[in-house]
């Protein structure tokens, strides 16, 4: 954790932004809401995805991300808001273009391959007769399945089925590709390889993609942009590094990885916590009269066994390359610290806990970052 690598990404995005025109936006959702009965599935949802970009939408299960996907596909009607694809309005409270009339392709979680058709027939299903054979061969080549066209889906492995589903969708060159938890049916070893392959295919095809997952690691890996959705609302959209290191809200911080929040006391310009002084970016001016907290990831702490320490180890989890210790501070607050496995501290041992001082930390006030981090950082 050195510096804020996200910053460089930001400048890159900003430059592109200046060049962009309206038609550069492949997918735009504005104020989209959807309720099922009493349940609000999606609320005031806004996103913008540029042509060729991959947006990974991540959130806990039940946060409405699949509903967003289905509304973009046209499989679900929205209540309020607008959806534009390639600059064309396809859904509003007054308009609903059917899924067969939108230039959108969707890859389902369990692929939904047609079991009674060969791979070729599946891939060619959405194509006109004219030039179908050539296009099918081309797309099968793109996904690395050349020679398997005569097989039935049931004769393929999980990873191959996945690529057939992708090929079927890519074949008709949709303006927007939608992926719904596409790796959740693959076992762990295969998953990492397949997602790298798929990212490469998407980038090679230059396809605008909305990708839905509940797995933070997957979102960080796949997305040019990562959108965090919690409780039907977008909490933050930005490049992966910034979403991880500069979360706009404490909800995002907690969702993207283990995070503890320590109350901060301001002593003049010094920011003091129970785990020692915190470090802010230069020029940081703590607001007056509010309760401030500092966010700390497990690797932001240094632990040392000491009878003079201000905490006690209450739990230790061995993770191979490291231990994660749970420490109860004297105030009763529990924090989590990760230390290399070379150092072993027993449960019950008193320890001295300090925040690392080699990089500035993030501060939060009532759940929001201070200074404020924009919700749509990639547009700022």
């Amino acid at each position: 954790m050195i510096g804020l690598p996200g910053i460089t990404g930001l400048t890159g995005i900003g430059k592109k932004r200046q060049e962009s025109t309206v038609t550069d936006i492949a997918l735009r959702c504005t104020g989209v809401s959807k309720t099922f009965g009493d349940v609000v599935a999606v609320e005031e949802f806004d996103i913008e995805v540029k042509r060729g970009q991959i947006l990974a939408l991540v959130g806990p299960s039940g946060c409405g991300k699949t509903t967003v996907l289905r509304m973009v596909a046209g499989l679900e009607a929205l209540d309020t808001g607008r959806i534009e694809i390639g600059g064309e309005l396809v859904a509003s409270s007054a308009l609903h273009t059917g899924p067969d009339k939108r230039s959108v392709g969707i890859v389902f979680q369990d692929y939904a391959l047609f079991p009674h058709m060969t791979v070729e027939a599946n891939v060619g299903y959405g194509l006109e007769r004219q030039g179908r054979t050539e296009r099918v061969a081309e797309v099968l080549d793109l996904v690395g399945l050349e020679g398997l066209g005569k097989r039935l889906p049931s004769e393929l492995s999980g990873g191959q089925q996945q690529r057939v589903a992708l090929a079927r969708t890519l074949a008709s060159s949709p303006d927007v590709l939608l992926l719904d938890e596409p790796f959740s049916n693959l076992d762990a070893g295969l998953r990492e390889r397949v997602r790298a392959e798929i990212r490469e295919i998407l980038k090679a095809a230059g396809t605008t993609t909305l990708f839905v997952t509940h797995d933070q690691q997957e979102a960080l890996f796949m997305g040019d942009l990562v959108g965090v959705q919690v409780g039907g609302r977008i909490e933050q959209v930005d490049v992966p590094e910034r979403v991880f290191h500069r979360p706009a809200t404490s909800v995002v911080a907690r969702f993207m990885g283990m995070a503890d929040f320590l109350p901060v006391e301001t002593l003049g310009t010094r920011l003091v916590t129970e785990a020692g002084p915190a470090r802010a970016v230069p020029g940081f001016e703590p607001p007056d009269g509010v309760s401030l907290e500092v966010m700390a990831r497990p690797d932001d702490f240094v632990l040392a066994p000491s009878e003079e320490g201000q905490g006690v180890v209450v739990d230790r989890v061995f993770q191979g390359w490291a231990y994660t210790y749970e420490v109860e501070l004297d105030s009763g607050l529990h924090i989590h610290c990760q230390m290399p496995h070379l150092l072993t501290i027993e449960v019950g041992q008193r320890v001295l806990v300090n925040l690392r001082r080699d990089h500035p930390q993030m501060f939060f006030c009532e759940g929001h970052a201070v200074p404020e981090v924009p919700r749509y950082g990639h547009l700022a």
Partner: protein
Amino acid sequence: MNGPRVIGEQLPAGPGFSWSPRRFLPHWLRREPLSLWLAAIVVAGAAALPVLYLAVRAAESGDSAIDSIFDGDTAAILWRSIQLIALVTLGSVLIAVPLAWLTVRTDLPFRRAWAVASVLPLAIPSYVGALAFISAFGPKGLLQGWLEGPFGLERLPDLYGLTGATAVLILLSYPYVFLTVRATLWRLEPEMEEASWSLGRSPWQTFRRVTLPLLYPAIGAGALLVALYTLSDFGAVALLQYDTFTRVIFNEYNSAFNRASAAALSLVLLGVAVSLILIEASARRRARYYAGANAARRNRRIVRLGRWRTPATIFSGVVTFLALGIPVFVLVYWLARGVNAGESQLFDWGAAYNSVQYSMAAAVATVIAAVPISILSVRRPGLLSAGLERFSYVGFAMPGIAVGLGLVFFGIRYATGIYQTVYLLVFAYVVLFLPVAVGSIRSSLLQVNPRMEEAAMSLGRSRINAFLTVTVPVIRPGLAAAAIMVFLLTMKELPATLILGPIESRTLATSIWTAAEEAFFARSAAPSLLLILASAAPMTFLVLRERSSN
């Protein structure tokens, strides 16, 4: 298995840890008690008995049996049977597939009511259905009576023969296709159709190229049931005077006393039934990749019928009116007329008592016989258990008349003590309805995680005790459903009861049959209505439960 035990130090699971003679059996036999295998083998052997004796009887009569198989009459009977099967199957599919789709996937008004009404014709025994149609549309029937006065109409189109048999059997057997297609429609993953839509295909193209092909296996399975039902039907073809195998066999046996010919024709009939099953099985083998549809998770899209709503409702109404309305109306009409005329024999209590008694005996015996085969085929899939299961399916392929005849030959020769007693009759019912019971028990056993029994055993219960305390309570609904279905099928069964029933002991089915043959419509109305009600009540319950679980 008692005494203290430490976690992580449990007895090895699976075979071989106890010192018993089973240790010396092959590995795959050892897992289940030997007695279970023996019981299953006895049951499967017993189920095969009728076929065996048909073959023995035909072989004994030598040339005369072979002559009767290869004479021109057999070919003619075969042709008539095939015509009837083809027409009934086609008609059933054409009625049932649209009805199933309408009641599952559209905004058809009163969908649930139509769904129940579309299944209920299964509750009407074929001889009752035929009887109702004859008394409604036949010569001197209700319709003619009404038309005669005002219009002077003297003749209606002839109901007897192929036309009438086809119409009646379609209306009574289309629910088989309706049920299998409906079940598959509920199970189809909505993603299949959604994927097709998002690939730019219209709803109609999606139906034709994705939904319908995915329904083929269900249509095939339902069509097989319809074809076997038609092939084995005796009541309707006999009353409507269309000479298929069953009617000719019965006449050879009953009137001409030509046993060799009856046995030979029964074997041919059995051959046709087995061919039908093989045709369907090979179609399914090619379609095996259709399987694997998960239960649907989300609400599926309901198709708005728009201006097709009225025609669709009329279609459902006409089918229900013909298949359910007419029989019930006609029977109630005759009952009322009988009551008004002071008919003395409106209801035969003795026959009802016999029917209930036989059916209860058949239900209990069949369920007990079905348990060992069901357990082995679920828990120990393998060559032997699959073979045993096949044998138990004899009754599925074998028309009641053939089972009855086979057991007559067996009874006369080797079991005169039980011939023409209720025991041999119940035995016939067990053979006939074993597949139904095995099917129901099997599917409920499939839902029992075998780990539950293993958990019970690791907690110190014996294998039997674990089965009785863990598995049986879980599969109780399956056992009950099996018993109820066998009970109802037995109540309605006609040909085997006619051939094997104890002399002078009537059942509801045989008394309806006698009354119908002699055109005492009023006398057969009350028992017919009772049979329909008895079958309709649990069927309604089953359909409604299916709905609420979806």
